[in-house]
């Protein structure tokens, strides 16, 4: 029986934006991958601080009604393109967690002290998923860009790795696309918590990643506001990642690195063995 493959997405689009090609590749190989959105909770007006209202204005959200359902529909459409399943947990996005984050400077800073316990809750909920098995293969964001929700999901990945799961950190996009120097900055912060870069070729699955990204109609114009052509931006990034052919970047979390050392030395993707 194959080990379950679970991709943890802080927000609705993060996995697809970052490593949708690998999701598609695993689906094609019969792994039945699951994409779990962590901070996908319902939005109510009381959760809107001035900062959240400002974000909504920027994103063109006029009412909290129907936002979650719309994002879920986009996520489902993207998942269908990649061939994976979805689950949505109910944790509120950082901008809706009261006064913990009231500006971009702290949204992309150190998670609030009280928020750090959320990683424990995330781990508990991931381990309660019907798909969860001991020895699962889990993908988490490396947290390039430093968004607090990405950092909390990465921290959950560290705990899961310590529990024996095989955990890989993926390269957060669009952060890595827009600010390539952010990758080295984050790697300097995590230090030896992760092993060396692994380049995963994705071949034709690259086009599925592009198509799945475009399924997030409400997000694409905001995320790629500096790009004239989303497809070209994503394809160029994937080609750069593979040195000319499309690929995606991953780093094994330390516990994984030790367990999978022999696979790693052979330069073989652990999840394709």
């Amino acid at each position, binding site marked *: 029986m194959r080990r379950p493959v679970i991709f943890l997405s802080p927000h609705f689009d993060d996995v697809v934006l970052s490593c949708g090609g690998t999701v598609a590749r695993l689906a094609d190989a019969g792994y039945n991958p699951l994409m779990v959105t962590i901070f996908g*909770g*319902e939005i*109510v007006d*009381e*959760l809107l601080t001035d900062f959240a209202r400002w974000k909504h204005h920027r994103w063109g959200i006029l009412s909290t*009604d129907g936002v979650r359902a719309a994002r879920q529909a986009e996520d489902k459409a993207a998942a269908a393109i990649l061939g994976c399943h979805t*689950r*949505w*947990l*109910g*944790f*509120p996005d950082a901008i*809706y*967690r*009261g006064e*913990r984050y009231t500006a971009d400077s702290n949204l992309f800073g150190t998670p609030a002290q*009280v*928020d750090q*316990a*959320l990683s424990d*809750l995330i781990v*508990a*909920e991931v381990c*309660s*998923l*019907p798909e969860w098995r001991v020895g699962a293969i889990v993908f988490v964001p490396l947290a390039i860009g430093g968004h607090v929700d990405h950092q909390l999901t990465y921290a959950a990945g560290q705990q899961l790795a310590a529990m024996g799961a095989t955990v890989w950190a993926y390269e957060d996009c669009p952060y890595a696309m827009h600010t390539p120097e952010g990758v080295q900055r984050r790697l300097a912060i995590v230090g030896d918590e992760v092993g060396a870069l692994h380049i995963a070729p994705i071949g034709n699955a690259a086009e599925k990643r592009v198509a799945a990204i475009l399924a997030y109609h409400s997000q694409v114009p905001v995320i790629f506001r500096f790009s004239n052509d989303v497809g070209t931006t994503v394809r160029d990034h994937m080609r750069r990642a593979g040195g000319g052919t499309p690929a995606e970047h991953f780093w094994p979390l330390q516990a994984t690195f030790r367990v999978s050392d022999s696979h790693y030395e052979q330069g073989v993707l652990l999840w394709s063995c």
Partner: protein
Amino acid sequence: MELLMTEQTADTLVLQPIGRLDLLTAGEFKAQLTTAVTEGKRRIIIDMAHVSFVDSSGLGALISGLKAARRAGGDLRIAHVSQQTLTVLTLTTLDRVLRPYASVAEAMSTDD
């Protein structure tokens, strides 16, 4: 999860879920809340005394019920929450939306 209806008037319903309110049960619970609102119960009290565990999906179902009740001009309130539920509510900051009441009577009588 079992769901008991313990009290009702023309527009008010008191529900008592029994068991876990989590990813596996949240969908059905949310559907039951929506149905209740559709049937005219715009004031819903959830007596949590026999809920053994709540996760983020369970809270999501409660908030969906709250939104449905509000759209109908009513409200959804929770009472008798456990320490575990209180911890999850506080950590997620959803206690600002789902303020726990000490008892069903208090939840029914308080205007705010």
